[in-house]
């Protein structure tokens, strides 16, 4: 018994070099999927590390939970709640994907179909959420890849009223959103975020005692600085760091594109599962495993986007 075992091992060692034996004990396709994901991880890491370095270099970088505090159909400010919901959607779709792979191991075609459909629905829900988030930023708050209306005050000061007198005071570190006269016209009569009513009266670009309105309609509120080297000066709220918009739209867009292509491939593989091609090939639904790896990776990247963009 022992003899046959050891001779088998010797045979195996000889055969290792005669081909046909995957050294990592996975198929070529799965191995290459792992290495593709490794390279993709470096791409995302490059983007996120660049974001982190720029953010740490600027004192006026916007505070994320002040930027991302909107929720569909709710007027109240709900910091981070919507992105947390998006995280749950993606995590849940990762769970359904894992179940699909497990049903694949059982050769249970119906199970695979059921769980893959749920995964695709999860992917679409996530994309819908992201579309809503982008729409809010672009259409309502007038952020774009080159104009960032979100900023953070770096000195203490007092906002000026419409007649030039001193109004409410603020401390360094407070966040602000530069409103646009376009959204004021649209939202006329509705409540506005703290203290911005002062500028509602102006509808034309120009230089007013309480605000400077530029040609694009952004209302830069004016304030008197009360601390630091510029104390006593009258300044207007500057735009936030330009890099913020570009990085946000590029990184979440790049991730969203991964989700979108994931949904496409899931759909293609679902059609193949339904057609029964994997049963005929007798390869144990390996394509489902491969797209599963990709889908979990998309979830993994979101964990880090969530970390550096919203949590810290």
């Amino acid at each position: 018994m022992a003899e046959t075992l050891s001779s088998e091992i010797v045979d195996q060692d000889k055969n290792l070099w005669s081909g046909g034996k995957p050294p990592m004990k996975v198929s070529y396709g799965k191995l290459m999927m792992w290495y593709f994901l490794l390279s993709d991880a470096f791409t995302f890491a490059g983007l996120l590390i660049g974001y982190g370095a720029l953010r740490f270099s600027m004192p006026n970088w916007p505070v994320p939970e002040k930027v991302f505090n909107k929720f569909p159909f709710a007027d109240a400010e709900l910091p981070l709640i919507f992105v947390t919901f998006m995280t749950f959607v993606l995590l849940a779709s990762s769970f359904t994907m894992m179940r699909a792979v497990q049903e694949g191991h059982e050769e249970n075609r119906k199970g695979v179909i059921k769980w893959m459909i749920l995964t695709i629905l999860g992917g679409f829900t996530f994309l819908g959420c992201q579309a809503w988030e982008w729409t809010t930023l672009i259409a309502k708050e007038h952020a774009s890849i080159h104009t960032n209306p979100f900023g953070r005050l770096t000195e203490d000061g007092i906002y000026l009223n419409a007649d030039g007198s001193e109004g409410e005071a603020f401390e360094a570190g407070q966040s602000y959103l530069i409103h646009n006269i376009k959204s004021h016209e649209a939202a006329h009569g509705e409540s506005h975020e703290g203290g911005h009513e002062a500028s509602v009266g102006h509808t034309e670009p120009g230089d007013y005692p309480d605000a400077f309105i530029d040609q694009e309609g952004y209302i830069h509120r004016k304030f008197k600085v009360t601390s630091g080297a510029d104390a006593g000066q009258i300044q207007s709220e500057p735009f936030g760091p330009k890099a913020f918009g570009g990085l946000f739209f590029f990184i979440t867009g790049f991730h969203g594109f991964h989700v979108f292509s994931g949904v496409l491939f899931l759909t293609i593989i679902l059609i193949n599962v339904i057609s029964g091609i994997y049963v005929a090939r007798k390869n144990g639904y390996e394509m489902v495993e491969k797209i599963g790896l990709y889908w979990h990776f998309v979830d993994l990247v979101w964990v880090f986007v969530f970390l550096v963009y919203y949590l810290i």
Partner: protein
Amino acid sequence: MAHDHEAGKKLALKTILVLAAITVTEVLIALTAKGYVINGFHMAEALLAVIMIVMSAYKAYLIVFEFMHMRHEVKGLRLSVLLPMLLLVWAVIAFFYEGNDWMERRDQIIKKNEQKPAIESIEPITN
């Protein structure tokens, strides 16, 4: 095989519940640290960052090892995918250190810019 399948189902459910619990905890800690939960209470930003990075790293571990089945791959595959990630640890430290240095030298840079002949400013508001 049927037994394996049941165990796998349980593992998937357990993993997703742990991931969801960590996410909820993360958001609660972040909101507390930023003064939303207890009025006037703030946590040091660096401490918050460390807590968040550790918790997210654990989430990443769960996704890779349970969802992506890395636990059951051979050692060679595990190492060939995970070892290169160590490069990123250094990249994070180096670039965040660098970003912080830019921040600290900001005044110095502004002073140097003022010494240069003034370039005609087009916009009244600049960054």
